[in-house]
């Protein structure tokens, strides 16, 4: 019983750490994808502007 309680606590801590890593990965993906979208829409705007000129 003692070992089971201790093991549950350790597993819970590891699970929380894994959740943190998962969200961190999604965060990096979200902000880098967003940057890519911004860059591509910027270059599209530049292209449109050049065409208009």
């Amino acid at each position, binding site marked *: 019983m003692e070992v089971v*309680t201790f093991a549950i606590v350790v597993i819970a801590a590891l699970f*929380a750490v894994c959740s*943190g*890593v998962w*969200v961190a990965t999604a965060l990096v993906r979200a902000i880098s994808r967003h940057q890519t979208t911004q860059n591509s829409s910027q270059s599209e705007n530049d292209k449109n502007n050049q065409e208009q000129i």
Partner: protein
Amino acid sequence: MQTVLPVIVAAAYVVVLTFVALRARAARQFSEFSLARRALPLALVFGSLAATYVGPGFSIGFVGRGFKSGFLFLGIGLAYSVQNILVGLFIAPRLRALKDCHTLGDAIGQKYDRKCQIVAGIISVSVCTFFAAVMAHAGGVVINDIFGLPNWSSVIVVVGITALYTTFGGLRASVITDAFQFTTFALLLPLTLLFVLVFRFDGGAATFSEQASVATSNGFGSTSFIEIVGLVAAFLLGETLIPPYANRALASRTTRISRNGFMLAGLFSIVWFIVMIALGVAARSIVPAGTDEDHVLLKLVGSIMPASGYALLLVVLVSVVMSSLDSLLNAGAVAFAEDIVKPFAELPDEKALNVGRCATIVIAVIAMAVAPAVPSVIDGLLICYTIWASAILPALIIGLLVKRPRPLAGILSMGVGTFVAMSAIVFLFIFPSIIKAPAIIIPALGAALLAYILGHWLDKIISGV
């Protein structure tokens, strides 16, 4: 050294947070400010939900409760986890499926009528503002504890930085920074627990279990049955679908993501409560027995990591407070623009965005002004829970589940729920020995439910249908 290191870590944290907030960029439309264009993926919905509910109560508070009452509070906290899972299964997908819905007030307006939307909007803005004041109070205490700054300037620092990125970035900035803050504390606090258990805890599994057992017995011995019932009711209903959670349900990319986000957040809360309570139990062998509950985590980290302990804790605690505060500021501002201003005035997108931004600043200023009057974090949260659960929940949940909800039932339930909750809170402050704080939610919620049934019956008689 004791002051320099926390200052360097705090400065580094603010720089990284600013970088993350800037990458989220400023909102250009109201739909971006209020719902992040309804494009949030599962991991961000989950991370943001968890970051919002893990406030000072679910971190500092739970460590203190683990120290005093062992695993008793895990049983009580499970009511919160069950609530999240039930909301994920039955409510969040229905909310997400509503069209042109930015807030809970919108949902209530669609189900009942415009009057109900305005009343729900006023309640939402007021509750968000008071919740924000509680968070500002907690943030002020943290900064004051670590840097020794005067309380008012500590509150201004925390609320000012949070209001700045929330005003410009709206929900997207709030969610992105929440994810960053979630990552910070979801890594640091469990790793602190593992460090304590592996390197600083004498006696291993046997001593840990013994400490847990003694503390839990003490907890059951010092908590009455009615207090436990009241706490379970408060954890089960008090934070159910408060405006920031509802905004995340509405902003999810699909109904499935909305459902799964809430269910995962519910499952994560079980894990989180175990980690926090285990930190409290482990602290029993390290921290002096008479330590005040709210200072157990601070003392524990300070004593196991002397030089860097405060700095580490500062980052974690500031993350915990800011991630809840930004969500409340944004949700209150969106509710103000959508539920209180829009029903009276035609608001083009750009104006709605400006109204939302101004409302963010006004709510932040009111929260700063009210923060010093907040009695304590736990009492402040219990007041918010009582008002929210009785004023909004019966009307909202019945409205989403039944086919033809009646407007009179909605408005009576919200009015009576608010009145009884406020009266119970005033009674609590005048006669603190007669009634315990967690128990006041029960009569207030009962009155709101009765008022709903009465309103439904009266409406049926009046309309004849």
